[in-house]
C-alpha cells in the first residue's frame, strides 16, 4: 500500500504544486481554474500516450523516456526563466496579456504531469498490481492506495491554492521558483543519463560523474516539494489574521474571527496533507523497502593451531548461526552453521554466507525457512552444504568429538567471495614494522595468504625469497 502511495507522491507532487501556484503567481484568476484543469487532463493523457508508446515499443522505451524527460526539462527551464516576468506582470496586471501567461502555465502544468504519469509507470513497471486477473485483496488494496494518493495530491493542490493567497505573492513566487529549480536539476540528471544510455552523447568520465552528482538530489525531489508546501503553510501562519484591538463593534469582530477560523482550516489542512504524504514516503523509504538485514555475525579468531572450533552442541538448535572471520588481507569472511535435520539428529551444514550465483548478499532465516536475500529462493534445508543451484558455498571442515573444526586456510580461500574489508594492522614480514592493510604501499600474495609491506625494499626482498620470511604457522596454508 505504502509503495504505490510513495510512487504517486514522488512523481506527481510537483504537478499539484505547479497547478496550485502558477495561476496565482501569474495573476490568472477566473480563467485559471478551467485552464489548470484542462492542462492536468491533457498532461495525464500525454502521460498515458507515452506509456502506451513505451509498452508498444519495448526496445525504444529508454529513448521514449529520454524524450519525455528532455521535453520536460526544456519546458521547466523556460518556465523558471519566464517566472520573474510572469510574476511581475501578474502583479502589475498590465503588459503581457493574461491569456499568454495562463497558456505558458498550462504548458508547464501539462508537461510536468505528463512526465509524472510516465515516471510513475516506469518506476512501478516491475511491480505488479495483482498476481491474478480474478479480483483479490491485493488488487483492491493497491488500487485503493493509488486512489488515496491521487486524492491526497488533489487536496494538496486545492489547499495550496488557498494557502498561497494567504502566504502572499512574493512567498508563492519564491516557492514556485524553488520547486522548478529542484525539478530542473533532477530533470537534467535524468535527461543526461538517458542520452548517455542511448548513445546520443558519447560517454565520458566527466559526464558520468556529473550524472552521479546530480542523482543525489533525485530521491529527495518529492520531499523537497512537500517541504516547500509546508514552508508556504508556515509563511501563512506567520502572516495570519490578527484581530486588531481597536475594531469596534461585535459584528465586525465576529466576522474577522470567522475569517481567521476559515484561514486556519486551510493552513492546517495543507500541513496535515503534506505531513501524511511525508510520513508515508518516509515509512516506505526508511523501513518498508529495506532488504532483510543479516543477523549479527559472531567474530571468530583462530586458536594457536590456526583452527576455529565450534561445538555442535551450540549450533544444533535449528537456527542459523552466523560467524565472521577477518582474513589476512582484511576481508571479512562470513560463514554460517545450521542444523540440517532436527535436534536429535544433528547434521550441521557448514557453509560460506555467499552464493556462486547471487554473490555475497547472504542468507536469512524467516521462521523455519532459510532464504537467499538476493533471489528470494527458499533453501531446501537438507541440501545446505552441497554445491549447486543457489545453495551457499560449502566450506571445508572436519568433525571431531562433537566439535566442528574449520581451518583458517579454508576461510582464507573464501576471501574472493566477499568485498567487505576491515582495517587491520599487520606486521611487515621483513622489517616487522606495523602497517595497515588499507594503505600499505605494497602487497604480495604467497601461498594463499596476503602480506603487506611498508616500502619497496622489503617488498622486493620478500618477493625474492618468500619462504625465508614466512614463519610456518600450523593450520595455515604453506605449512610444511
Amino acid at each position, binding site marked *: 500500500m505504502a509503495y504505490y502511495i510513495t510512487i504517486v507522491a514522488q512523481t506527481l507532487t510537483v504537478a499539484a504544486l505547479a497547478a496550485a501556484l502558477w495561476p496565482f503567481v501569474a495573476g490568472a484568476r477566473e480563467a485559471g481554474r478551467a485552464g489548470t484543469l484542462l492542462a492536468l487532463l491533457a498532461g495525464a493523457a500525454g502521460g498515458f500516450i507515452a506509456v502506451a508508446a513505451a509498452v508498444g515499443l519495448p526496445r525504444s522505451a529508454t529513448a521514449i523516456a529520454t524524450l519525455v524527460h528532455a521535453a520536460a526539462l526544456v519546458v521547466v527551464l523556460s518556465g523558471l526563466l519566464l517566472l520573474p516576468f510572469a510574476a511581475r506582470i501578474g502583479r502589475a496586471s498590465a503588459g503581457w496579456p493574461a491569456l499568454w501567461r495562463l497558456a505558458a502555465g498550462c504548458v508547464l502544468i501539462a508537461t510536468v504531469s505528463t512526465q509524472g504519469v510516465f515516471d510513475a509507470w516506469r518506476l512501478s513497471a516491475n511491480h505488479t498490481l495483482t*498476481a491474478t486477473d480474478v*479480483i483479490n485483496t491485493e488488487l483492491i488494496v493497491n488500487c485503493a492506495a493509488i486512489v488515496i494518493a491521487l486524492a491526497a495530491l488533489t487536496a494538496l493542490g486545492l489547499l495550496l491554492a488557498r494557502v498561497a493567497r494567504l502566504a502572499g505573492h512574493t512567498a508563492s513566487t519564491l516557492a514556485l521558483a524553488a520547486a522548478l529549480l529542484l525539478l530542473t536539476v533532477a530533470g537534467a540528471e535524468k535527461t543526461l543519463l538517458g542520452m548517455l544510455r542511448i548513445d546520443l552523447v558519447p560517454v565520458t568520465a566527466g559526464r558520468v560523474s556529473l550524472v552521479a552528482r546530480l542523482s543525489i538530489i533525485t530521491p529527495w525531489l518529492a520531499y523537497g516539494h512537500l517541504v516547500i508546501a509546508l514552508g508556504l503553510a508556515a509563511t501563512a501562519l506567520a502572516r495570519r489574521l490578527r484581530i486588531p484591538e481597536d475594531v469596534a463593534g461585535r459584528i465586525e469582530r465576529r466576522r474577522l474571527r470567522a475569517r481567521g477560523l476559515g484561514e486556519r482550516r486551510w493552513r492546517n489542512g495543507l500541513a496535515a496533507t503534506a505531513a501524511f504524504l511525508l510520513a508515508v514516503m518516509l515509512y516506505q523509504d526508511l523501513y518498508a523497502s529495506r532488504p532483510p538485514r543479516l543477523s549479527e555475525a559472531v567474530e571468530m579468531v583462530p586458536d594457536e593451531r590456526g583452527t576455529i572450533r565450534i561445538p555442535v552442541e551450540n549450533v544444533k538448535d535449528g537456527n542459523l548461526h552466523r560467524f565472521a572471520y577477518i582474513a589476512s588481507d582484511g576481508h571479512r569472511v562470513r560463514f554460517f552453521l545450521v542444523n540440517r535435520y532436527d535436534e536429535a539428529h544433528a547434521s550441521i551444514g557448514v557453509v560460506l554466507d555467499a552464493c556462486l550465483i547471487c554473490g555475497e548478499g547472504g542468507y536469512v532465516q524467516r521462521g523455519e*525457512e532459510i532464504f537467499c536475500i538476493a*533471489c528470494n*529462493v*527458499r533453501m*531446501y534445508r537438507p541440501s545446505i552444504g552441497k554445491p549447486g*543451484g543457489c545453495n551457499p558455498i560449502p566450506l571445508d571442515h572436519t568433525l571431531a568429538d562433537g566439535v566442528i573444526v574449520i581451518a583458517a586456510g579454508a576461510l582464507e580461500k573464501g576471501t574472493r567471495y566477499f568485498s567487505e574489508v576491515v582495517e587491520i594492522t599487520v606486521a611487515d614480514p621483513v622489517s616487522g614494522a606495523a602497517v595497515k592493510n588499507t594503505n600499505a604501499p605494497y602487497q604480495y600474495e604467497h601461498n594463499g595468504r596476503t602480506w603487506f609491506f611498508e616500502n619497496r625494499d622489503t617488498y622486493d626482498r620478500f618477493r625474492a625469497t618468500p619462504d625465508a620470511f614466512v614463519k610456518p604457522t600450523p593450520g595455515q596454508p604453506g605449512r610444511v
Partner: protein
Amino acid sequence: MFVRMLRQSFAGNRKRKALAAITVALSAALITTLFALSVDVGDKMATEMKAYGSNIRVTPRSENMPLIIGGRDFNPLRGRDFIDEAGLPKLKDIFWRHNIVGFAPRLTLPVVAADQGSAPEFSLIGTYFDRNVPLPDDPGYRTGVRTVNPFWHVAGAWPADEAGDGPVGVLIGGGLAQRLGAAVGAELALAAPETPLATAAVVRVTGILTTGDIEDQALVAPLGFVQKLAGQPGKFQSIDVSALTVAENDLSRKASRGAEALTPEEYDVWYCTAYVSSIAHQIEEAIPGVSARPIWQVASGEGAVIGRIQSLLFVVSVAAIIAAAMAVAALTTTTIAERAAEIGLMKALGAAPWQIYLLFIGEAVIVGLAGGAIGVVAGYLMAQGVGWSVFGTGVDVRPITVPVVLVTSVITVLVGSIVSSREIASLLPAEVLHGRQ
C-alpha cells in the same frame, strides 16, 4: 452545532432514514455476496501464485496432444505411453536439483474386486510411499507421496514400498472403503475387468486414505506391485514433483508464453531463478520425451469459473448500486421538499451553501454506513448459503470485503443525495419562509 443539527435531523425523520438505510442494505448484501465469492477465490489464486512451494506434473509428451472432441478424450495414446523408471534420478540432476523436495511416480491400472464380479471398476494406483532412491551424492535419499503430498491423511499405517512376505500392503481411499466395506486389515483379491492380470493379486489394507481427490475412490499400492500386475516392469505414466519455488512475477509470466519470447539476458535470469516454470523447463530438458506442467489447483478449478463470470458479477453489482442510488435520490428529494422551510431559515441566518450541503452529506454518510453494516452481515449469511449450495463448502469472507462494501454503500447514498440536493441552491429563503413557491 453541526453534530446537534445532525442528531435533530435523525430524530425527526426516523422512518425515511430507516427506509433509505434498508434500500442500501439490500444492495450492499448483494454486493457482499458476489464480492465475497470472487475475492475468496482471487485471494486463494494469489496465494497459490506466490507460494514458496508448488507441484509439477510430468507426463509423456504424447499425453498432451489435445484430442478432446465433445468432451470425450480421443487421444489414442493416452495411457499407452510410459516414462522409464531409470530416468527418475535425473530429476535430481538439474540446475535447481536442491529445490526439488520430492517426487512420486504414478501408474494407474483399472481393476475390480474379484469377489464382486459386476461391481464398477476402480483404479489401482502404484506409487512410492517413502522409498529410497539412491542418488550419486546422497545414497540415502528418500522420496514418495509422503513428501509430495504432506496433506494426505491416513487412518492406520502407511504400507511398505518393498514387497515382504504375504499379501502386499495398500491404502484404500475412504469412498472406496465404504463401497467395498473394507476396514484396516481386510484382504482383497483383485481382478482385471477385461484382460487377465499378469499375476494373482491379493492385497491387505493397512490404512484408509483421505485426500479430497481421485485417490478417495482408489487403491494406492507400491509401484513395483502394480507394474508387475500391469506387465509393465520399470514403467509408469506420470510423476508428481514437489518443488520449492519463488513467486511468479512479470518475467515468469512472459516466459510462460514461451521461452523463445525472452531476450538472452531475460532467459538467463529466468533460467537461474527458481520459478516453477523454469524448474518445469529444466525437467523437460533432463528427461527426454516428457512434458512438465505446474499444477495450479485453484487457478484451474474455481478460478476458471470465477474468472469467466467476473464481469457478470460486476454488472449485477453496478445495477444494484444504481437502483439503490435512485431510490435514495427519490427519498432525498422528498426530504428537501419537506424541510424547505428549515433550509430557508438556515440560509436566512447566514449559513453558506456548503454548510447546508455538509448537513446532507453527513446524513448520507451515516445512512450509508448503517445500511452497509446491515448489508455486510446479511451478505455474509447469503454468501455462506451460496457457497454451500454451489461449491459445497463455506465461503471464507475476506476482511477487505467490509471496507469495500461500506465505502460502496456510502458512495451510493452520496450519489443519490447529491443528485437531488442541487435543489438546495435554488431555494430562496423569502419564498420558502412565506410558504409560496
